[in-house]
């Protein structure tokens, strides 16, 4: 957060001596200015972040293709493992604008963020859900088991991506696909409709990693709650679910706030949860390793303690409200700010 603030100090006190020094100061200023702009944007307009990078757009597209392929394969009885081309219904869905729908894209952006954040965690140390398998509260034990299963490679493997979708989105996507298949084939296919009904009736929101993590966070007593704020111990889903639960915001929003370029929203979010500065710094360092500089850390030391928890909490809720408005009324012009 406020990443550029500290960086200016040595330059002001020791005026540059040569043109090379001047130019390097100029370059540093330019990047600091950009960082400040990003910070201001992140703090004031969290739902209108800087436009996604090419890399993000490409990752979202890949995930969308995989999702549509998986559902289509399931409805048409194809093997998703052997399909390589874009799905049959892709052109129709794309033309209809459905694939640009705000809530679908938001979900995909959260998944891309999730993938990026997962990469930063040490896979060998996530032992909390496994330890909770024998918890005396059956709800905790069951949720831990579900979380481990949902997090497993099998659930993330090709062919099953739709199982992690939110029910509202899965329902919508399935019936859109049915319509697209009918248009494409020029006739109604009873078997496809039966497949959709079967798919939807088999679905269980409680089996998704997000719901299981939220349930764990909901049921877990005080004895292990502090572990939930250690991402390496709790795992990403539990960590995010705990923050979401504490701040009463959506888990996908938390994923996105952690992942965006500026660390400002993450810092404010951690302050809102009430984590002490030392622990917060460790968590930020974990997720933002390559983006952090000694200047960030110095600034964090100065600014974190000054930020009041209630104000940070109110700010996060304001972001959540703005995001909710945007997802509800994506075309209302200024609601995206």
């Amino acid at each position: 957060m406020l990443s550029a603030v500290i960086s200016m100090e040595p330059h002001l006190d020791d005026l540059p001596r040569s043109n090379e020094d001047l130019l390097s100061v100029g370059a540093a200023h330019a990047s600091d200015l950009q960082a400040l702009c990003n910070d201001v944007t992140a703090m004031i307009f969290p739902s209108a972040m800087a436009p996604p990078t090419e890399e993000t757009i490409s990752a979202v597209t890949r995930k969308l293709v995989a999702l549509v392929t998986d559902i289509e394969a399931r409805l048409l009885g194809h093997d998703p493992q052997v399909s390589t081309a874009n799905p049959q219904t892709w052109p129709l869905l794309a033309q209809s604008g459905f694939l640009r729908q705000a809530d679908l894209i938001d979900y995909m952006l959260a998944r891309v963020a999730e993938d990026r954040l997962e990469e930063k965690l040490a896979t060998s140390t996530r032992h909390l859900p496994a330890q909770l398998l024998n918890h005396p509260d059956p709800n905790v034990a069951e949720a831990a088991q579900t979380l481990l299963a949902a997090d497993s490679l099998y659930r993330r493997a090709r062919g099953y991506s739709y199982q992690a979708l939110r029910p509202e989105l899965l329902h919508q996507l399935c019936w859109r696909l049915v319509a697209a298949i009918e248009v494409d084939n020029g006739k109604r296919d009873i078997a496809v409709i039966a497949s959709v009904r079967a798919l939807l009736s088999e679905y269980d929101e409680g089996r998704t990693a997000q719901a299981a993590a939220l349930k764990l966070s909901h049921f877990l007593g005080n004895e292990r709650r502090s572990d939930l704020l250690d991402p390496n111990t709790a795992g990403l889903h539990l960590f995010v679910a705990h923050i979401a639960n504490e701040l009463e915001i959506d888990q996908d929003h938390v994923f996105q706030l952690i992942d965006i370029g500026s660390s400002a929203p993450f810092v404010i979010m951690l302050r809102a949860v009430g984590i002490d500065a030392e622990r917060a710094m460790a968590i930020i360092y974990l997720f933002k390793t390559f983006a952090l500089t000694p200047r960030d850390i110095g600034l964090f030391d100065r600014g974190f303690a000054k930020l009041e928890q209630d104000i940070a909490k109110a700010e996060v809720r304001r972001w959540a409200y703005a995001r909710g408005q945007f997802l509800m009324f994506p075309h209302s012009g200024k609601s995206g700010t």
Partner: protein
Amino acid sequence: MMTGATLAQPIKGGVASDGRLVFADDALRRLHHRAGGVEGGVLAIPGLAALAALTHQLKMRLSRAVKVADVDEDLELWVEAVLEGGIASFSIQSWRASVPRIMSPETGLKEQRFNALAGFSTLDFDTGLRLISANGNVAMLLDRSDFGEAAVDVLTKITKDGEQIGVIVNAMLERRDLASLATKTDAATILISGKPTHSDEGAFTGYRCSLQFVTEQVVSEPAAASPGFLFGRQLAPVLRQPLGRIIANAETIGSELNGPIRENYALYAKDIANAARHLVALVDDLGDLEAVEQVDFSTAKDKVELGDVARRVAGLLALKAADHSIRIVTPTEAEKVPAVAEFRRVLQILLNLVTNAVRYSPDGTEVFIDIATTDDGSLLTVSDQGAGVAPEDRERVFEKFERLGRSGDGGSGLGLYISRRLARAMGGELTVDTAVNGGAKFILRLPSQ
């Protein structure tokens, strides 16, 4: 923090497609009744009703945390729902109660209600000072029959502080602003402020009272940080400091004090300085924006001489105008128009208007600042010889972030929005019209006394 434990046996219930609660375990049925529901009627617990409706709509198995407001506490339930035989059946796995909202059983209903109150409320009165609307938690203290009642009766119902009620009602009758006034009740302290409301044409339309229910601690510590001031009070100062340094250093580079550098590098340095200046302006705008959007935002009542303000602004912007060969024409020393407003806010509005006029006028033209006294108050107008504002854009131009399609000129789209909010906070108005020569003419009206 939640207290309570996982239920030994889940609590079950079922909701038909028309929303009726068709079966329920005892605890759920009692909760439904406490929420105002009747036997066999529509489920009166909004969170659960919404989950049931979604289950009917999607026909899928759902699993969610649901928050429910009970009489004196909030509940957090973990609910699993599934559609079975046309009934959305749910199973409540946990029933966690928050710390009770209401303090003790012996406190009366009025005190309980006061304890539940938080934040700001507003009361709107019509031109006859009869209550027409109540927003926020103050509505809990009023009955339906109170609407249409005289202000004095409505206020008496809220606070018994007769002396202060007299002051408030006098301000309403005299159609003047009321600064924050603390009134005591037997259960709380209320800060009441108010201001007359006007139509777009400036006609009196009624009076609005803003109420804040506060604890003693808040009253004695008014400077305590309030949510919503994160940017202006805490972050803006932190941002301004490095931006100042960026500007200073970039200017040093651009001025080539240490010998010549490549021309494009010098230009880059100027770009950096300009970008930083733009960001400083944006930070200032956002700080102001945050302030003016606070419910309790108010301004001081200074005696201001508008001709003096106009000449000061012209002096401040003379160099900027000269860069574009623009002349700012101000009222003479002999012309004097008094107004009652906060001096620095009037200066801020006028700086914004004249900056805009200079920015959007062709080089070599003139910007006129005129002052006048009318029956409706004191007027200050800024006219330019630019392209003007089309009639269909005259309201839009005062909207937040509205740039009328412009970009890259250093504006944030907040200046006019903030200026209008400031003008209204001072009991005035800011509008735009067409100048004689077709340019834009911004009219700031302020109270004369």
